[in-house]
């Protein structure tokens, strides 16, 4: 079993943190694949749900630390939207541990590598995400209710 992890990284902090992990040669699992976005607030819930539907086993959204957003207030919106998305995942009966929000600055290469290793291990423990892959509409009402 090989899990697939998608990481959305903001250009200014977390993507730069990932670059620093690279220049410092800090090893982390190759399961993690990064999508660059200008700001974590660019990450639409639809992107995350789409990733789960297409077979991602874990999704992690990374942005600048609160107060340090390159666009001043972007990550406040991210924080708020992710909170409601966690609620939605629970409603769908999806393990909340498959999704994570993390603040990683441009100087935190080690934090980036450690977080990715730790999150991948966490997703591996949950195993493959089979419930909502393909056509997630198939979930029965009963299954959905269970997750509340």
């Amino acid at each position, binding site marked *: 079993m090989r899990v697939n992890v998608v990481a959305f990284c903001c250009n200014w902090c977390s993507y730069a943190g990932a670059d620093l992990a690279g220049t410092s040669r800090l090893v982390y699992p190759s399961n993690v694949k990064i999508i660059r976005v200008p700001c974590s607030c660019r990450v639409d*819930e639809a992107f995350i749900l789409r990733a789960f539907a297409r077979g991602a086993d874990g999704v992690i959204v990374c942005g600048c630390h609160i107060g340090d957003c390159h666009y001043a207030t972007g990550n406040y919106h991210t924080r708020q939207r992710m909170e409601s998305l966690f609620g939605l995942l629970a409603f769908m009966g999806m393990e909340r541990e498959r999704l994570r929000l993390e603040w990683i600055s441009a100087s935190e290469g080690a934090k980036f590598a450690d977080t990715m290793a730790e999150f991948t291990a966490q997703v591996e423990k949950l195993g493959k995400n089979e419930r909502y892959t393909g056509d997630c509409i198939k979930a029965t009402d009963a299954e959905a209710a269970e997750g509340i």
Partner: protein
Amino acid sequence: MRIGVFVCHCGNNIKATVDAAYITERLRDDSSVVCSAEFPYLCAEGGQKLITEAIAEHNLTGVVICACSPRMHETTFRKAAAKAGLNPYRLEIANIREQCAWVHKNKEEATEKALSLAKAAIAKIKLSQPLFPGESRVTKRALVIGGGIAGIQAALDIAEAGFPVDLVEKSPSIGGKMAQLDKTFPTLDCSACILTPKMVDVASHEKINLHTYSEVEKVEGFVGSFTVTIRKKARSVDMTKCTGCGDCLAACPVKGKENRKAIYIPYAQAVPNVPAIDRESCLYFKNGKCKRCEKACQPKAIDFTQEDERITEGYGAIIAATGFEAIRLDAFGEYGYHANKDVITSLEFERIINASGPTGGKLVRPSDGSVPARISFIQCVGSRDATARGKPYCSKVCCMYTAKHAISAKEKHPEIDVEVFYIDVRTPGKNFEEFYRRAVEVYGVRYIKGQVGKVIGENGSLRIQAMDMLENGRYDAVTDLVVLAAAIEPSDSAKKVAQMLSSPIDANGFLSEAHPKLRPVESATAGIFLCGMCNGPKDIPETVAQASAAACKVIGLLVKDQLTTNPCTAKTDENNCSGCGLCAEVCPYGAVGVISHSTAVNAALCQGCGGCTVACPSGAMNLQGFSRAQIIAEVDALCG
């Protein structure tokens, strides 16, 4: 679409861990990929030529580069594409060096991942649109925050080039730490003698507008067009009337720290030479009674009713030069700094040996005013200390200023016995090693390799217990004055300033440069530059060099009339927009306007964060260059 894919080896950096030939081959499976090639160094001239020629030969409408981070060479490759006639925004980079080759050990895994990343980039480029940058006007005025030697030098250089500069300094005088120093290593020229003329130049330069006792409160806008609010703190002295005679200082009955009066001028050569009232220690502000300074002031410059004043000004570029502080020593109880008057910091030692300092330059102990028979300098107090109380880095200037202090002490009183406790002596700099050797060989300063465990007060003297690592034994002796080389850290307001400027700081709180080697004076945020100690420990020559470099970058920006703007901005689809305005609410730049049941984005203001696109409930708002369809295509490619 006709896509060309180019895979870089980066010498062995990529090739050793990612099978470049395999990727090059496999990407041809996509029917849109009409050409695919690998090359040792794509960023080199030959590599760029390969790309530009392929664009022409294959009539490419999209390019994917598999190489290092786009933060490294996106601009390089986009420029090359533009030269060959391809819209530069039809080029994407798959980061297979920082994200594959350098962080994964297993070649097969790294190769598979690199292939996925390349496929995601291809998926994204297929949905790309040609984008065209706009233009924005440059405000031809610069702001410098911090009036230490860094800020002073930067302001002078910019002003000399003919551009107006505002210099904001939070204390009543410019000069920073250098103004407190006695002499400077390694030449031992007097600090004031080389600094004061520059301070006077700043004050008298017609292009420099000096705001002392002031702080930056708010920064808005972007490169070329920042709007900044500066708070001029109430000085309680009218600068237009004050003659700097000093009668008020003599009249003030308050005696505070370092014998400072409530109305004070930080030091004799202060610029401007106008005192300020510290309202926290002033008797009139505390109890409503006194006003002796007002009575003493003949030109009637004292003004107790003065209030903070706010000014707002536009700037094209901003330099941060907020400098440093020595760390607080609360967590270093073993050195007895708070318990003994004769344990002082190196900066306090500078004041004691300084002719314009509190003792008039007499080298005496703070406790009883006697000349010490022995002085012990302790290095690395909090520097190179990875525990929570210390700093993991070397503070860089301490070895040299301690050698300077040791020589100064010996010059004043050759009979004083001077010892230095050190971990390593670091002297990389022009004439630095020679200077240190002089302290040892000519002046007879004793250097003891070892860390001090304890400093204890004992009958009016101090006892030092330490390890002598070269003599392989315990060191236990009595001394008269202990001087601590406290680690250097960024000034306490650096974080606040960095946040206002959206300029990243590093793990130790220093402002980060955009690239440690190639962009040492630029911040990651366009239009923001940095110099001096706010960026990391540095001596004066390095600070001055960095300040001039930052000034040079600012001048390069201010000579332009227009800047091209990032075309990756938000755009409304009027057909889907209901005009609800949720997008306008989240926009930090006021770039979205609601106009009769629809919205419009002002591309000159939009910085392209994409917050509005996610806030829009009907999907009418999209971000060019990072469109919904593009990101979903990337997701699908990575999850497929």
